[in-house]
């Protein structure tokens, strides 16, 4: 499995963590971030969320992110998986896994990766509600 992927299919956090751990036995701390679709029924009713990507550029931007993280932080390995499909409440959307000798850099790199992914990777989400569809224009 590639360490950076955009895919329709769901992913397994365990399989990704295992793949990361297989890279080096020097890894002592692994920080992960898993983004899921929340129950949208609080504010306004949303039936599903659809993702669109700029195919090619999105995965390229994610690979560049991973490389930059490996340079900026004292980490050993990082994986980034993002689904581009239609998701419903509770579904998995994005996974970041970072392995380092020590936990400090693992946490820092993991938080930086998800923050920066939202700014640099050409993926868009559209909320589908009973009364129509709305593109989400700001990354929270």
């Amino acid at each position, binding site marked *: 499995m590639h360490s950076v992927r955009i895919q329709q299919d769901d992913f397994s956090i365990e399989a990704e963590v295992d793949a990361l751990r297989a890279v080096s036995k020097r890894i002592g701390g692994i920080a992960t971030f898993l983004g899921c679709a929340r129950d949208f029924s609080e504010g306004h009713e949303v039936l599903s969320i659809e993702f669109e990507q700029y195919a*090619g*550029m999105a995965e390229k931007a994610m690979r560049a992110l991973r490389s930059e993280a490996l340079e900026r932080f004292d980490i050993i390995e990082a994986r980034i998986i993002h689904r581009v499909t239609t998701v419903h409440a509770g579904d998995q959307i994005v996974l970041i896994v970072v392995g380092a000798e020590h936990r400090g850099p693992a946490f820092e790199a993991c938080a930086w990766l998800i923050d920066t992914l939202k700014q640099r990777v050409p993926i*868009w989400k559209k909320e589908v509600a009973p009364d129509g569809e709305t*593109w989400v224009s700001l990354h929270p």
Partner: protein
Amino acid sequence: MSVKILFFGSVADRLGRRACQLEISEPVTLAHVVEAVGCQEFQPLLVAVNQEQISDMNLIVNNGDEVALMPLFSGG
């Protein structure tokens, strides 16, 4: 000479199309491309040339380049 233009997300929806081919007689600036396809008033508008994000609108676009006009990203 022609340039391939891609539109994404709300930009594609507003224009009612997802791609077009822009014919040019000579290399032009990115600003010219944006205006030629009617996106000059789309703000904020993100632009990529050949899958690299570009902020300098004076960048010259050449025959065969791929230009993407995009709203703010909202992945993650």
